[in-house]
């Protein structure tokens, strides 16, 4: 279980997380929605210790991430797959070498590494793509390789940062399918950051809306769809929205 407890984070004068508290239970996919620039990626980076909170804690299975020793943090990162927004493939390495990197770090033997690379590429419907280079791939294919790189490690958790943003609807549906498959076939707990509501409803078990540095509302898809919070309602329905025009009690 991943647990944010009263997390505060600012960059210079800019407050990004302002008391974020959220539990992410195992075995489900939790979707974090919110406007661009509200700190969704910042929140994800706290889970793997790429950023440390100014105050508050992020725990993964009871371990406080920012207090871990470098070795313990390395071990924790071994349990978490991270799919970056623009895939963040190493462009000097082939697709196969990209996936191999994390596996080699685990000290697996060559046969297992080969098998895992082939298996994870098959799972994202890119069998035999080992020798290709990131520059030759389309945006959607890069995302799929990014997902393959994460699932090859058989992580307990996978964090997806805007997996469908910038993709056409068909490719988005493919990626959604992969995320569902990763949970069903590998049993991984997913955290998906997105502002694509269609994707959120397809892959999510729970949805949490991040707004002004904290969770505005969290609940099942049905609960979110039935929300009477004007901020959440406007967001999920994609209506233009002016926070200053809200009734005072609603913005509190």
């Amino acid at each position: 279980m991943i647990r944010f407890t009263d997390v505060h984070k600012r960059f210079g004068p800019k407050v990004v997380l302002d008391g974020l508290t959220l539990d992410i239970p195992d075995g489900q996919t939790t979707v974090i929605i919110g406007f661009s620039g509200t700190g969704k990626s910042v929140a994800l980076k706290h889970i793997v210790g790429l950023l440390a909170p100014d105050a508050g804690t992020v725990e993964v299975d009871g371990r406080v991430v920012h207090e871990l020793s470098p070795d313990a943090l390395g071990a924790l990162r071994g349990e978490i797959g991270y799919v970056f927004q623009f895939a963040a493939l190493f462009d000097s390495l082939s697709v196969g070498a990209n996936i191999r990197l994390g596996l080699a770090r685990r000290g697996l033997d060559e046969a297992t590494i080969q098998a895992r690379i082939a298996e994870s590429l098959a799972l994202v419907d890119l069998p035999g793509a080992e020798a290709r280079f990131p520059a030759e791939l389309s945006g959607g294919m890069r995302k799929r390789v990014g997902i393959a790189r994460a699932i090859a490690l058989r992580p307990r958790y996978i964090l997806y940062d805007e997996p469908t943003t910038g993709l056409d609807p068909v490719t988005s549906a493919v990626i959604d399918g992969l995320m569902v498959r990763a949970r069903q076939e590998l049993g991984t707990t997913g955290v998906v950051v997105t502002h694509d509501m269609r994707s959120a409803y397809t892959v999510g078990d729970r949805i949490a809306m991040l707004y002004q540095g904290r969770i505005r509302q969290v609940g099942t898809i049905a609960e979110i769809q039935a929300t009477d919070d004007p901020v959440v309602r406007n967001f999920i329905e994609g209506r233009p929205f002016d926070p200053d025009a809200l009734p005072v009690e609603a913005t509190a």
Partner: protein
Amino acid sequence: MPIFTTAVEPGLPARVVTRVGRSAVTAARALADVRTWLPHLVPQMRRLGVDSVPIALFIATFTGIVLALLSKYIFTGAVPLYFVGALVGKTIMMELGPVLTGLALAGRVGANIAAEVGTMRVTEQVDALETLAYNPNSYLVVPRVLAGVLMFPVITALAILLGVVAGWITAVNLLDLSTLEFVKGLKLFYKFKDIWFGLIKAASFGAAVTLAGCLMGLRTSGGAEGVGRNTTRAVVLGCEAILVLDAFWALVLL
């Protein structure tokens, strides 16, 4: 909120010591992970060599020619002409070989590294490395800095050799100096220290240039514009470091 826990601001010396201590720990940790950096060392050395040798040799050739002509002009008959060999040899080995090569490579190698690492930073490849449980310092910084430390002296040695040869050819063809006289001058004040002084400097310049490139690259933020900005900074920082180190070694070793 435990943000302001230190009641008293530590003084500057204490902060400097803390800072240096932390950097030393970071460097030691990065170096200890041999398995991560070793496979990248030879490719980085090769790349650095290929990138730098042509420009270093180009500079050295012209430096040798100019030095020979310049020494003739300076000596104007008052000093025996074979001193040309001494002046060319000494200045190229001890100063111009290492420094001019270093400055040229600060532009080429430093910019190259900063742009590459900076691009990796802004496209989250550095974050990706970390999430795959690699230490970016071990993976990116150590092989580049070690390649710099090892290759700069090699490239500088080539530059020195070619510079002296260019000086000799110039002296023989344009200054009415015989090969024997040139060599006599070259040997006149030569000490073994001259050459290792030059090469130690080159090694330190290699460390400075590559480190500046890596640090500026890793500190990049703000997309393509940020990459451009920090690439320039890396070159400037590398050049400044070379000049400061040059003075430092002159003070310490001469």
